């Protein structure tokens, strides 16, 4: 397992989060939620710290992390790309958009590019069905996309 150095500030912040939940075992999911907010993902080191703080086994923490699709152990890219797979987006060709992003970035869904710039994820309806198919880059929404526009979006953030 590769060891990633976590910053001391963030570790303290994580411990404070645990404390804010009284270091209670039953609050594991809430703690993990906040931890993912701090680090962007849940690397093994973070899970070990949480296990120690809540006095539970790391295996148990990992069991919960691996159960919920919301939790991820892979770092998100600087510009996380989320492709909507809601019904409207889906029927208007979201799948082709995914394929194009995978081709252009050379990663699979759930992965991050080697330079750490982009990561690819799918999500369900974002409530902008009129703009289908929709893609989010960070918080910015791109609508009425065609596979051709994918390159331009990536280029916009590659500068």
């Amino acid at each position: 397992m590769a060891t990633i150095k976590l910053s001391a500030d963030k570790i303290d912040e994580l411990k404070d989060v645990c404390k804010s939940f009284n270091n209670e075992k039953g609050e594991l999911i809430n703690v993990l939620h906040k931890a993912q907010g701090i680090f962007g993902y849940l690397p093994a080191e973070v899970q070990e710290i949480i296990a120690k703080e809540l006095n539970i086994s790391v295996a148990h923490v990992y069991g919960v992390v691996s159960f919920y699709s919301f939790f991820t152990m892979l770092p998100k890219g600087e510009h996380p790309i989320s492709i909507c797979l809601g019904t409207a987006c889906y029927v208007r060709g979201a799948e082709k958009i995914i394929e194009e992003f995978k081709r252009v970035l050379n990663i699979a869904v759930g992965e991050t590019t080697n330079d750490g710039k982009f990561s690819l994820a799918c999500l369900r309806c974002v409530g902008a069905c009129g703009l289908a198919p929709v893609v989010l880059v960070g918080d910015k929404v791109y609508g009425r996309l065609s596979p051709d526009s994918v390159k331009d979006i990536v280029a916009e953030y590659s500068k």
Partner: protein
Amino acid sequence: METIKINIDNKIVEVEKGTTILQAAKKFGIHIPTLCHLHLHDLNIENKPAGCRICVVEVAGRKNLAPACVTECMDGMVVNTHNIRVLNARKTVLELILSDHPTDCLICSKNGNCELQSMAQEFGVREIHFEGEKSTYREDTSPAIIRDVDKCIMCRRCEMMCNEVQTVGVLSAVNRGFMSVVAPAFEMNLDHSVCTYCGQCVAVCPTGALTEVDHTNAVIRALADPDKTVIVQTAPAVRAALGEEFGLEPGTLVTGKMAAALRRLGFNYVFDTDFAADLTIMEEGTELLDRLNRHLNGDKSVALPILTSCCPGWVNFFEHQFPEMRDIPSTARSPQQMFGAIAKTYFAEKLNVKRENLVVVSVMPCLAKKFECQRDEFKTNGNPDVDYSISTRELAHLIKQLNISFNELPEEDFDHPLGESTGAAVIFGTTGGVIEAAVRTAYEVQTGKKLQKIDFEELRGMEFIREATIDFDGLPIRIGIAHGLGNARKLLEDIKAGKSEFHAIEIMACPGGCIGGGGQPLHHGDSSIIKARQKAIYAEDASKTIRKSHENPYIIQLYKEFLGKPCGELSHHLLHTHYFDKSKEISVVE
């Protein structure tokens, strides 16, 4: 106690309030099949996640069938445990489990001893009506335990043992749905986890998902090698359980037959770990008295309590989880390792055999012993003091494989000099035994008086944590005993907090001690078997003429001819060890 009446299979029965349907049925002779459920009454251990749904029964007025293991009886409840709806449901559940299970029973190491296989036979499954994808997961082989999770049925018994009873916390269900498996954190292999190799997960696994690393073939090869002198040692708990593998009643002592079987297997010398247990008492007892007397004389540098160190699962546990307390346990090696060290020096010299040509095999009720004998500190120039450690189950396989009719064998004795032992040694096999053996010797050495009564009933029993004060001729010695690592943890935390009042503590990783070890014949959830083994151990002790380790004539001879004195220089080199901080090895955090 409030009682209620229920109708179960047209029989009106009265049960205590709070009784489950499964318990009520059992009480009145109705056998409801179970798979995930496990109840070790005498040890107060229960697993009932109600996950497998094999134990479903029909409760009148309820829409769905109810799992008997968790459904409480209600007054007036009408239960049917075997109508066609119930039978069909059970069979469907079983077929669904089997549809994602390898059907390689013929070559599975659990063949003939598998609860899933027995159930398929009982239910008369002749066809599996469901076809689909099967789980595939890598096999994980550690020095002691093999995980083959394709055979896992997610009963969660291993998780319960690992987390609740042992508090080791290695195993957890991970991932989701079809992808879910029981695995260590981050799905690492066992040898990268805090696994102690206690083997309690193996002891309760209903299928072949968790098994031991099998060394029987290596032993057969060594026995066939004309250049090797092969000797064997057998742990005390083995003789109280081996008979079960040959259809004998639990608690049948087979010491003599076992010695005869080992001789017929071709071992050049059939020795006894009990000899080394007596040796352990000499070393550990001397260390105990030394630490005690220095402490009583006001030496603040001496830490008390002293903890026993015979149990390799326990040693792994504190090296991983309490490394800061690693100076508290006795430095005495376990009997297995003491035997190996003496065999490859003293005995090898006697035989005029090079240590490389002397193969030491141990038969142990334990899986952690497989790991222990591979530790680097127990090797000389890469040659281990104990070459192979096999479990009680593996010995039974060996005997069967070499077509030896175990039950027809005569009773034979162990060979000399490493086969002679006392009653104090044999009780090492049960919880409370090591400390009782130590007390028998320590008392006489400390007080210079003969013990009036050799049996220390106050140290015996099955309660998880026991304590007693023994009067050393006016000096009260406070003794603690814990078995099961979860209970050991409680005593350790007391010591850490400075709350411990004990002078000496015995710890065994497995519930019941070695008689309940991870390498013993499978109890399949019947804890009365472990109790019967305990009774047998004390019976063997009572039948011995010599019952105190320091009176073993061959031990006295060993010190005279070879070792000098207990805790002397040679003893220190051969019979003592030191412990490591292994918390870092298994952590990903710096």
